[in-house]
């Protein structure tokens, strides 16, 4: 939940504050702190829009453009998802963020025995192009960008997005998709992995390479410190590991003969916002600076706009509580405030009922309104990086920068990020931290309103999003119809071509687009990869 540790004396006065990343906060800060850290305006901050972008990536900040609001949406069938998309767009949402159900995320068709009980439950079920045709019907794909929250089979979903866009008459060059596509973080935290590390990273390299030439407005990879943090990482680890993961993807593409400046500008990030507000703000400012420096110094990136750390800062799922769920509305507001104070490009919030269920339309709109209120009512667009120059914030930003570098160095010492994930080193570390954290909450050492202070007896249930088995029935019926009506010979041909290309180590993207257009199913395409690549073996922890 990310609260700091407070030590108090007998009179109840706070004598020490230790942030989650291990940084101690002093009673007050002054000019001598800036001197101590060797603060330099030019080197550490610079004006907004200037290297190292600590303050902001755009010189005008939110004056030129407010942040994009992008609530995570999708459930049931593509019909229901399409309705919810339109509801959110009608309420002023400016980008989509598509949730997929677990069978889709894991590459199983809705009628696969592995999918039983899960179809359409935590997101939309996608079996074939038919589902995308319905989900994106009447949505202007040239104007609205879509986040696709999927990883192991992100390549398939990106191909599907191109296929649907072309079917609706859009040029692939004008559409903008942001598949999550970060498999290393899945192996650390979210668990939706399928293939072993090496081919899984290669697939990501394929999407990056393909986007460069075919879908230049697409952000082919969104590196998620978010889920690593949800799994128990500190804010400093969240950023440090994300930068190392991004570097692993760069390192996969570089040997294919490209210049890093050709593709790295399309990378984006997804970070978490729960916890101590100052620590979050300092984290984002330090992250922007470190990413820019990493690209400039390690990779020789030349174009300044390619050094921007762009991304979605938001969510905060782990900060939400089941107890007194309405408090999550206020938590969301403060989380959004930290993201906005730190200059996020895109913000999404977990809805207050997400500790229980898929958000209801009512709670999803409350989250959206929270963001709009900050944007339009209380002044977050007035000036860029409003906390800059604060003795505290600048000192903390510098200390956070050092902590992040420390965490990165530790991973390099154990053989780098790919090895640290394959061996379970990081998984082990974060799960132990998560345990220590839970103990802190349960003992009351870490404070959580409604949980261990200001509690009020039994917590009540909130209104729940209903799931019925009918969703699965409808979805399976539709899938069977697609299989019956498609040109089977053409589908088989595209799948055989995909398999040959995969075995030959070619970029699989054009072959996947052909498969999608021939209504091959997600399960069929994934089976090709499963046969060729095999599956990831989870490192044992206990």
């Amino acid at each position, binding site marked *: 939940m990310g609260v700091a540790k407070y030590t108090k004396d007998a009179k109840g006065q706070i004598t020490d504050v230790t942030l989650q990343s291990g940084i101690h906060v002093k009673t007050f800060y002054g000019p001598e702190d800036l001197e101590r850290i060797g603060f330099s305006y030019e080197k550490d901050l610079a004006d907004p829009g200037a290297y190292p972008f600590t303050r902001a990536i755009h010189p005008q900040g939110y004056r030129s453009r407010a942040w994009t609001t992008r609530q995570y949406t999708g459930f049931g069938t593509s019909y229901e998802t399409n309705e919810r998309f339109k509801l959110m767009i009608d309420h002023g949402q400016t980008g989509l963020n598509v949730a997929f159900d677990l069978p889709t995320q894991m590459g199983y068709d809705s009628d696969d025995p592995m999918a039983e009980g899960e179809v359409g439950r*935590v997101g939309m079920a996608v079996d074939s192009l038919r589902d995308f045709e319905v989900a994106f019907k009447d949505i202007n794909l040239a104007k609205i960008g879509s986040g696709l929250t999927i990883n192991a089979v992100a390549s398939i979903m990106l191909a599907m997005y191109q296929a649907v866009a072309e079917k609706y008459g859009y040029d692939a060059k004008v559409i903008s998709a942001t598949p999550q596509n970060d498999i290393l973080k899945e192996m650390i935290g979210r668990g939706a992995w399928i293939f072993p590390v090496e081919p899984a990273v290669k697939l990501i390299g394929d999407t990056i390479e393909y986007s460069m030439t075919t879908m230049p407005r697409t952000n082919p990879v969104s590196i998620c410190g978010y889920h690593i943090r949800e799994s128990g990482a500190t804010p400093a680890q969240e950023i440090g590991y994300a930068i190392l993961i991004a570097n692993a993807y760069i390192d996969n593409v570089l040997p294919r003969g490209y210049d890093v400046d050709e593709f790295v500008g399309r990378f984006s990030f997804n970070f978490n916002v729960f916890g101590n507000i100052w620590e979050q703000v300092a984290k984002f400012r330090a992250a922007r600076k470190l990413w820019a420096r990493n690209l400039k110094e390690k990779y020789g990136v030349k174009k300044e706009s390619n050094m921007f750390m762009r991304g979605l800062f938001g969510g905060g799922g782990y900060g939400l509580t089941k107890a007194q769920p309405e408090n999550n509305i206020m938590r969301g507001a403060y989380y959004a405030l930290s993201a906005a104070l730190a200059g996020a490009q895109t913000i999404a919030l977990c809805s207050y009922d997400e500790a229980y269920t898929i958000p209801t339309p009512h709670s999803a709109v409350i989250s959206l309104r929270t963001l709009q209120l900050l944007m339009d009512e209380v002044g977050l667009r007035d000036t860029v990086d409003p906390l800059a120059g604060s003795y505290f914030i600048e000192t903390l930003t510098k200390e956070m920068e050092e902590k992040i570098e420390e965490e990165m160095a530790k991973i390099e010492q154990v053989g780098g990020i790919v090895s640290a994930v394959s061996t379970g080193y990081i998984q082990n570390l974060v799960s132990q931290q998560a345990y220590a954290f839970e103990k802190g909450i349960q003992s009351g050492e870490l404070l959580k309103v409604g949980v261990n202070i200001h509690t009020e007896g039994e917590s009540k*249930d909130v209104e729940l999003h209903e799931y019925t088995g009918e969703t699965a029935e409808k979805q399976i019926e539709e899938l069977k119809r697609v299989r019956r009506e498609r040109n089977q010979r053409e589908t088989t041909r595209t799948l055989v071509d995909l398999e040959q290309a995969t075995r030959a180590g070619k970029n699989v993207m054009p072959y996947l687009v052909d498969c999608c257009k021939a209504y091959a199913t997600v399960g069929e395409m994934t089976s090709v990869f499963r046969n060729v690549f095999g599956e990831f073996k*989870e490192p044992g922890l206990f």
Partner: protein
Amino acid sequence: MARTIRILIAKPGLDGHDRGAKVVAHALMEAGMEVIYTGLHQTVEQIVATALQEDVDVIGLSIMSGAHIPITEKLVRKAREAGIDDKMIVVGGVIPGRDIPRLKELGVRGVFPGGTPFTEIVRVIKENVRRDQEAKWE
């Protein structure tokens, strides 16, 4: 002296959110139990097979996807078919209060929604296992 309690912590289904499962595994180990963790993406059949093979006293399911009722129904059925319906079953995860009676009806002896104190989880497991062992001797 009673033997060490052996518990299987299982992640059934496709959901990969395993923070809760791992954290509880740590807590149970610290409470002196022997924990076997299945890892992710397990079918109910695989879980039953592991429970049988490892001869555990308790099967703990960690479910965050909302599919806790169908999964538990299936586990109870498969455990019975495999002749291990004497194993104590507990369920944790994102479990709305309204679903607890149905899980109890299925024979689940401990339901632990997110935020349940470790001491409570340990107490329920220890008490029930002791009761089971005493019942066997009667």
